[in-house]
């Protein structure tokens, strides 16, 4: 039951939410369900830590990697839920824009993401990832403006095509397994495939083909560069808490799927091919995103490109391989999700105060919104990889891995990209913060829930930067052990 309950509760909660038409009741019910869900997930993580591996039925499984990502998801989701309570007062009227629809869709989205993390079977994982696209599409198009509808359409089409390619890759993997002697009903089960991987080493070409398609397919959802066209639009046009969920939770979800498949192919035919491909994607993403950040005009698009850049760094970390590279990559994914959540929370406040997110129209933020600008600057420093925050540690680990393997090109790439991105962000932020505030709508003080969420987020980042708790390191080590 440990795995079934947290999986089914959000689905049930989504259906239940639709019954509450009164906004305030809806919000309270949502908070209640959210708290219960967080408790259940915490219980799940603790049980996983004790047991190592939990398998329930044929389709649900949890191990070290699962618990790591579950901690990530729980944290981000709790923060987003807390933030959205205050945010929802300002949602414009429309067909789907009442709180009950918002929370119903958010819980559905959570259900699909949990299905990805808890699935034992590669086929189920694929179905769950496709379901995350479908569940979040209506959230992206939530505001029903022209930009939102266009972003939602592009998101649906590009991601569905990408994930169809991932299906092709999964089928090729299945074929390699069946030809390697694995019985057909078990040939999509991850644990079985990991055990049988040495048997599959004869089908080299097929496994390479499978990995290429899976990397392209799940890479579309992660945001690797040739396939990233949906990401800036979707993250920019969605409501701020949804953008935070997309950037922080969904990208990690797709990364998890890619890591699972990469583990199988690496064990079967070795690291060489998959790591080269990941380095290529990572390098391309990092450079393109960094350069494109300079010419952005919308704040949320800037943050979206920053997400692409950081996912590129994660890919470079995984591609470098070894203990350090993988450790750094996983830690970086975690830190990035927290930092991005923080930044997207500030955009919500900025939009409310200034009415727009166009950076050339925002002036004098430092004087108008002192606390928000402080958080924005702190978040910007965090995302750039500055010392007191967690991303510094993870990027440092990845760079160390690059230098110890004498991969100077990769290290230079990372450093160059980080610097360019930092420069771009500095330029944009400096323009926004200085000067006279032109238009300012009178708004009440930020609700306590928003401030609390942001503070908790910042605190986590600081903690991860200064001193990672031992329990967390243990979880991280378990996760890495699973992949090697």
């Amino acid at each position, binding site marked *: 039951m440990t795995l079934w309950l947290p999986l089914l509760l959000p689905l049930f909660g989504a259906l239940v939410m639709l019954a509450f038409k009164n906004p305030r009741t809806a919000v309270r019910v949502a908070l209640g369900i959210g708290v219960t869900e967080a408790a259940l997930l915490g219980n799940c993580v603790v049980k996983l830590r004790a047991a190592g591996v939990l398998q329930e039925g044929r389709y649900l499984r949890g191990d070290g990697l699962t618990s790591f990502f579950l901690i990530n998801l729980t944290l981000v989701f709790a923060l987003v839920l807390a933030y959205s309570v205050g945010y929802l007062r300002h949602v414009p009227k429309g067909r789907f824009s009442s709180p009950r629809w918002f929370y119903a869709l958010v819980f559905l989205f959570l259900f699909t993401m949990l299905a990805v993390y808890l699935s034992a079977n590669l086929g189920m994982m694929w179905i769950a990832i496709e379901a995350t696209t*479908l569940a979040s599409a209506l959230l992206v198009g939530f505001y029903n403006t022209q930009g939102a509808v266009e972003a939602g*359409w592009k998101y649906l*089409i590009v991601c569905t095509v990408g994930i169809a*390619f991932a*299906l092709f890759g999964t*089928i090729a993997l*299945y*074929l390699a397994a069946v*030809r390697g002697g694995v019985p057909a009903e078990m040939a999509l089960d991850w644990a079985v495939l990991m055990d049988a991987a040495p048997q599959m080493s004869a089908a080299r070409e097929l496994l390479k083909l499978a990995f290429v398609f899976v990397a392209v397919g799940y890479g579309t959802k992660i945001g690797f560069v040739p396939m990233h066209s949906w990401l800036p639009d979707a993250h920019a046009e969605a409501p701020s808490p949804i953008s935070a969920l997309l950037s922080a939770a969904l990208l990690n979800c797709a990364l998890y799927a890619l890591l699972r498949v990469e583990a199988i192919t690496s064990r079967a035919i070795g690291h060489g091919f998959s790591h080269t491909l990941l380095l290529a994607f990572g390098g391309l993403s990092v450079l393109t995103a960094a350069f494109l950040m300079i010419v952005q005009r919308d704040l949320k698009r800037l943050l979206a490109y920053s997400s692409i850049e950081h996912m590129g760094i994660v890919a470079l970390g995984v591609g470098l391989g070894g203990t350090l590279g993988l450790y750094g990559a996983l830690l970086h994914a975690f830190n990035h999700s927290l930092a991005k959540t923080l930044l997207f929370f500030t955009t919500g406040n900025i939009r409310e105060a200034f009415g727009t997110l166009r950076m050339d129209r925002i002036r004098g933020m430092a004087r108008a919104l002192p606390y928000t600008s402080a958080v924005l600057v702190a978040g910007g420093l965090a995302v750039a990889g500055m010392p007191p925050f967690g991303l510094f540690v993870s990027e440092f680990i990845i760079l160390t891995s690059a230098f110890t393997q004498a991969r100077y090109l990769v290290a230079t790439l990372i450093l160059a990209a980080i610097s360019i991105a930092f420069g771009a962000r500095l330029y944009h932020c400096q323009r926004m913060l200085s000067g006279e505030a032109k238009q300012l709508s009178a708004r009440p003080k930020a609700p306590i829930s928003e401030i609390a969420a942001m503070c908790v987020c910042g605190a986590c980042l600081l903690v991860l930067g200064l001193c990672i708790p031992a329990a967390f390191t243990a979880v991280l080590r378990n996760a890495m052990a699973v992949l090697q």
Partner: protein
Amino acid sequence: MGLVEFAAAKTLASSAVFLFITVLLMAAAKRTSTCIMLFGVQCAVITAQILAAAFVYHSREAYVVAAMVFVVKVLAIPYALLGIRKRLNVPGGVSASTTPAQSVYIAAGLILLAFLVVQPYVRALALDGEMLAAATAVLLTGAFLMVSRKKALMQVIGLLVLENGIFLAALTTTFGMPLVIEMGIFFDLLICVLLLGVFVFRIRDTFEHVDVSKLRRLRG
């Protein structure tokens, strides 16, 4: 040989040809409803092929899969798409960026490309080259339709044809995946089509047209 065995064997041998014909006709089609019906015909050919394979290899699961393909892809999805098209009521045919003759040339080129691409795998895996080439050709044509047709509904149809190609490739190489996975995939596909339909209506309502080549507000 009994009549049913004969029919099954002939179906298996000639379904690749029917798939090529539907691919070429879809490229040449000028009206959206023609394309939707050709998609239905394509899925019917796939159903017939699965049934024939189920009969020849005595697989019970394959009958269930064939029934699912028939209900979801031959009946439900084309019916939904035709309904959407009728309610959208947007004139102007398919809004292709290439003439029918050019599209047929490109589709023919894609078929030849498909044959070229599957050669190494056919030799390595000892498969039926024609069927795998047909699957790849369907995939490539789906991608071509998505790229060259400007109506939003045509992009949906292109996406469905692309998924058809992938499903067909799965069928040719592995005789299908475990049943639960197949059902999950079909369910996903159905929800996807429904959502895309919702979005097409939203596009029409917010933009006053359904021409996706004009959705260029978000760039850079």
